[in-house]
């Protein structure tokens, strides 16, 4: 399974905000941490704010802060803001999908989809925060150094996850 870039950015962001609901975090801080374009991230944050998961804070020290209940929001809730898992309509199906072989393969892919959806629907942001905290304590994660170097950033080669 591969999530689209906007979806990943939304998940990174909402988890950053949920980690400390009282803290205002600027878009540029998240953009820097995840090595993404602030312009790209702004659209994602705008959608999260529109949906009520974060709220914007104006003025000095402004940015966004978490505005939902981390124990009630699942990964799937965030993913569905940016992705559509509905079955492809007839106009988007590949010709081979209506053959017996294609239908058998579709059954297998459907099984995988259902398990993935159940997994994503059962993991709340609060559960993710526990995992992140555990990772912080036990496993420093290596940052993609090559990409940072290509962009001319000296930055730390090692950084804790999330």
């Amino acid at each position, binding site marked *: 399974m*591969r999530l689209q870039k906007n979806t990943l950015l939304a998940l990174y962001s909402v988890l950053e905000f949920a980690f400390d609901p009282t803290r205002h975090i600027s878009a540029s801080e998240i953009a820097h941490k995840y090595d993404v374009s602030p312009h790209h991230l702004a659209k994602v944050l705008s959608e999260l704010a529109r949906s009520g998961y974060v709220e914007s804070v104006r003025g000095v020290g402004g940015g966004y802060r978490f505005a939902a209940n981390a124990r009630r929001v699942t990964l799937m809730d965030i993913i569905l803001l940016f992705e559509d898992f509905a079955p492809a309509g007839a106009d*988007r199906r590949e010709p081979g999908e209506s053959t017996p072989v294609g239908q058998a393969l579709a059954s297998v892919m459907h099984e995988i989809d259902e398990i993935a959806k159940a997994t994503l629907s059962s993991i709340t942001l609060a559960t993710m925060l526990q995992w992140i905290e555990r990772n912080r304590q036990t496993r420093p994660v290596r940052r993609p150094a090559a990409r940072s170097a290509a962009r001319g950033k000296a930055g730390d080669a090692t950084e804790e996850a999330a």
Partner: protein
Amino acid sequence: MRATSTKAPAKPPAAKRAKASAPPVTRVAGKPAASRVRPHESGASARADAIDRAAAAQPATTVSIRPVRPSDLAQVIAIDSIVTGLEKADYWRTIHRRYGDAERAGRRFLVAEANGSVAGFVIGEVRDWEFGSPPCGWVFAIDVHPQFRLAGLGTRLVGAMADWFRREGVDTMRTILARDNTLILSFFRSLGMTTGPFIPLEIDLQGADFFPIGRDRAP
């Protein structure tokens, strides 16, 4: 899983356009605007929030976890009936006979007692080499009365069962749930449980002739 498309940015909800301070709302995939709800008020989340409110209304309680007693059975049946919407008295009497004896090796039936009443229960069993698995502890039933949810009873019940499994010498605790039971799946996930190495498989023996199990195939 395949993402079939990226959604186009949607217009802000009418209520939000009208008043910036209106409650935040979100889209629920596949539902019309009329059914828009708060992020935490859809499906299982709405039930969970109702439980939040019920729990908040409860006074402080004293809770203890202990083995089930015969006198608890009626309350166990009542809790299960409230939670599942189905009264299964005969089933629970059988379960109590099988698992209610604390002296019986490998089986445990615990209740959470709050203010003198049964507020929840958990049942577990150590099974050896089932499905080729080394001995592990199975949690096969857990219920908490809705009035007592979010008070940590479920966590304490599972914790007590985990402690007992450890004393029995097993290293793994396992359970199985319907995949649309997101509320309880989320509960077990919040305890750190993840998908295990076994995958349940099944077939509809009445309707499936796709692979005719137990039927003579035509030559």
